[in-house]
């Protein structure tokens, strides 16, 4: 593909000088310019992000210096601030999440790539990706409704009686069995990062050359020994996947805020409540009345941003080393894309069948011990995949069960009101739809232009590389920090929380997702299309808008829907920006109602009636997201069919 594109470009360069009306030239320039502007806009966004946070944190950085990071005192009365308790809480809860999520995820990925019957691969992958589409607030709500009571009554007393009796380690499982704790946060986050680590590990394993596996079998290896060889080969990429999961856990806000217990102390026991950097921001930024207080919080946000950027950068680097051509191995390798060559092969029913399934049967081995290990490990992998799917079933099942019980016509027809009166969330439903619409108006064009720039016009230029890196940084930015940015830039400047600020934050969130899918989809369009268009004297403008974009349209729509599904469930970026409203006043320049904010409010409240409403609203929200995700699946299928 690359050679063909270059030749078209060369031909174009000649033609540009020779032929073409001024109109077509202007159109061409405009097209390239607009796309490049999309790319440059991403860089501007990242600079803005860093600049605004640094500016807001500067007074605190000057006052406290780096000692802020090791000061364990967070005292809003004396106005003395240190970040250590939240840094500790963030790191420990994230490590805990990884400790649980990593074995499960790798097991599930091995199952998907090396054990699963063909008919199961596609639906199972889809279901695991669904876990990633469930909004953070749903995990949090499930956490306080199911996980926390379970931990309190059964889980923690059991741990205390068993692991708690051990020397040293026992300290981790001591203290009152409260439920709301570091442990609860770690468990909820583990469930949240499993889909991320699983899907990236799956892609990494798929891109390991078949020769390696075949060679292992040829040398008499058992299934597990061959699997180990494959895992060993892809270890850098898998490590990258883990770091990616870690970065996600570090920036997680809503679910953690709901279950961690919000306590700014360092406590060795996992049973004790704690606080993460993100949950501290969610809890205290709204009422930081003194400038010093706000500066200290923004300092924390800045540290959090640095941490996630470094983590994401590291992860991307490691993954791309394994997966990219000219990286760890050569030859054409799959991209990190849901439409990788392997998956396409899995879709068609001819040819490769034998090659795929044959080695999997080699679970037996002449050495019974080796053969036994193989069987045990295979069973463990099956268990890991089953566990993941069971978790999905448990969470969605619970939401559906509670949601249906709480559904009522009032939810759609009435406004929020006092307890005991018939009330609903009419304005919140409409408000969320408007916010998604407005956010899309910012995010979709910007993301698409950036994607077009990356795929069509960057041509390995330095700017292109920077833009690609910047898009990765944006994709990994914790949503609470995006909210903070919108607060500093829009709310503080206009003097009021507003629908505009909220939708800008949402648009910001969807940009990188859309940019990435657009780029990938455009790259899948065969170079021959571009050549043919050029041969017929199509300008860049014509080629792009009449040939390439239509060819990739369903794929791009997939990206757009992914982006919309992602922002539909977002809560953290709205906390500081739209503030919520109980009236049906839809002026985007004013505080704005939002479904997710209302769910958060009701989910953390005690009255039965409000909890019921929150579950029903959650069901509605997840329904919207699932419909979008299913549509993505459908659209991507028909797309694969057209291009194949």
């Amino acid at each position, binding site marked *: 593909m690359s050679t063909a594109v270059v030749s078209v470009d060369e031909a174009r360069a000649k033609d540009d000088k020779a032929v073409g009306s001024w109109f077509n030239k202007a159109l061409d320039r405009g097209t390239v310019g607009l796309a490049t502007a999309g790319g440059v806009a991403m860089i501007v966004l990242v600079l803005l992000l860093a600049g605004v946070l640094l500016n807001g944190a500067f007074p605190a950085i000057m006052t406290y210096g780096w000692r802020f990071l090791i000061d364990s005192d967070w005292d809003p*009365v004396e106005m003395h601030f240190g970040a250590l308790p939240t840094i500790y809480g963030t790191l420990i809860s994230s490590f805990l999440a990884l400790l649980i999520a990593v074995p499960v995820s790798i097991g599930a990925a091995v199952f998907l790539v090396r054990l699963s019957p063909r008919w199961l691969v596609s639906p199972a992958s889809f279901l695991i990706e669904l876990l990633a589409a469930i909004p953070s607030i749903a995990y949090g709500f499930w956490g306080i409704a199911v996980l926390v009571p379970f931990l309190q009554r059964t889980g923690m007393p059991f741990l205390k009686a068993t692991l708690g009796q051990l020397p040293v380690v026992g300290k981790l499982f001591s203290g009152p069995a409260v439920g709301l704790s570091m442990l609860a946060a770690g468990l909820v986050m583990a469930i949240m990062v499993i889909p991320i680590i699983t899907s990236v590990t799956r892609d990494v394993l798929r891109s390991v050359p078949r020769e390696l596996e075949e060679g292992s079998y040829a040398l008499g290896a058992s299934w597990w020994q061959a699997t180990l060889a494959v895992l060993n080969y892809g270890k850098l990429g898998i490590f990258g996947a883990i770091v990616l999961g870690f970065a996600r856990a570090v920036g997680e806000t809503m679910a953690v805020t709901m279950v961690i217990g919000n306590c700014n102390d360092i406590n060795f026991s996992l049973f004790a409540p704690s606080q993460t950097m993100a949950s501290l921001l969610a809890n205290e930024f709204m*009422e930081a009345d003194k400038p010093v207080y706000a500066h200290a919080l923004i300092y924390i946000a800045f540290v959090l941003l640095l941490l996630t950027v470094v983590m994401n950068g590291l992860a991307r680097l490691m993954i791309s080393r394994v997966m990219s051509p000219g990286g760890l191995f050569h030859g054409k390798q799959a991209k990190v894309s849901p439409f990788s060559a392997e998956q396409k092969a899995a879709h068609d029913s001819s040819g490769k069948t034998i090659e795929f399934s044959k080695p999997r049967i080699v679970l037996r081995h002449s050495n019974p011990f080796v053969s036994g290990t193989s069987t045990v490990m295979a069973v463990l992998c099956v268990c890991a995949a089953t566990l993941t799917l069971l978790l999905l079933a448990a969470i969605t099942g619970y939401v559906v069960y509670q949601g249906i019980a709480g559904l009522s016509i009032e939810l759609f027809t009435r406004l929020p009101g006092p307890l005991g009166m018939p009330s609903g969330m009419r304005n919140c439903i409409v408000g969320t739809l408007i916010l998604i619409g407005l956010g899309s108006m910012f995010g979709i064009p910007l993301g698409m232009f950036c994607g077009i720039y990356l795929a069509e016009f960057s041509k390995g230029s330095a700017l292109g590389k920077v833009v690609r890196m910047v898009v990765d940084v944006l994709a990994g930015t914790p949503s609470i920090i995006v909210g903070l940015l919108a607060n500093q830039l829009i709310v503080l400047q206009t003097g009021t929380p507003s629908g505009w600020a909220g939708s800008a934050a949402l648009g910001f969130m969807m940009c990188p997702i859309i940019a990435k899918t657009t780029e990938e989809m455009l790259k899948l369009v065969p170079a021959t299309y571009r050549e043919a268009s050029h041969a017929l004297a199509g300008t860049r403008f014509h080629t792009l808008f009449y040939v390439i974009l239509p060819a990739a349209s369903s794929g791009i729509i997939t990206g757009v829907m992914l982006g919309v599904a992602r922002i539909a469930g977002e809560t953290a970026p709205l906390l500081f920006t739209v503030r919520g409203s109980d009236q049906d006043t839809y*002026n985007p320049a004013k505080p704005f109602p939002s479904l997710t904010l209302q769910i958060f409010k009701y989910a953390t409240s005690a009255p039965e009636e409000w909890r019921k409403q929150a579950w029903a609203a959650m069901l509605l929200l997840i329904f919207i997201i699932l419909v979008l995700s299913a549509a993505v699946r459908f659209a991507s299928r028909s797309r694969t069919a057209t291009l194949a």
Partner: protein
Amino acid sequence: MRLLYQVSVLSMLVLASGSSVRAENISIQGVGATFPAPLYAKWIFQYNSTHANVKLDYQALGSGAGIKQITERIAQFGGTDGPMTDEQLKDAPAKILHIPMVAGPEVMVYNLPDIKELKLSGEAVAEIYLGRITKWNDPKLTALNPGVNLPEKDIVVAHRSDGSGTTWIFTNFLCKVSPDWKNRVKNATSVKWPIGIGGKGNDGVAKVVQTTEGGIGYVELAYAEQSHLQYASQINKAGKVVRASIDGVVAAQKYITEFPDDMRVSITDEPGDDSYPISGYTYLLIYQDLSYLKNKDQVTELMNYVNWCVHEGQEMAKELNFAPLPDEVQKKVEAELKTVVFDGQPVLK
């Protein structure tokens, strides 16, 4: 692409309809304390039924948020139970008035399914929140509750995670009954808690206690009732056991002989046999000069509503266990409300 187009057209339509509605309506936004939120929600519901064109909205995000957003002039009125400090008042761009709306008791809710009755003293509550009493069957607690079989369970302390007037009233009370508390933790809307789990809003604290066996927390009485949580009776300054009620708050209010002109007052730990010790006023915060809002209709409706609350609204307060303003306080408030001006003219006649 077509889908995209349709989505954006649709959202534009919704937007347009939204803004056309706005043209006829007056929207007023308030932010603040969760303490009076059950009552405020009811007031707004009631007021809207007779004034359909006034879109009142009160977001209960905590007193800390209320103080911040009125100071920054983001909301048109704020709500707080902890009066603003002198320093906070000085930071505000203009003079802010504290308008007492009602008073209410805070109760210690607990989650011990088998214990139907519990008595607590101020010292005991302070010791629990300082982390010195950690078990429900601590001798200090059993001594207060003879005949009650308190379990050997860990006490799980719940407090607020956000800036809160409920916390202000609670810590104000603890400062009066415990010198250690006064020295170590002090009285504020957010403090450095020695121990415990943070919940967001009165609701969040109720939620923590509701889900945690052995839990204890402080919430406004209406929240205990709404959430069906048990709450302890308090031993007051006179050494008598009092159950939280309107009467207990009214009794405590009596001991404020001279209600200050700026209305900032504390009624915790008052003497008298019937006084309930943990109670306080909740305030509406507004600027004395509302000219900055620039919209005369909005200002008029805002003041009409506030005036309605301190008159017609007072009767409704009792249904939710809030104590109405005593007559002399109400007179003071009436006079205060008349000092509010727009473009140099008093808003209320």
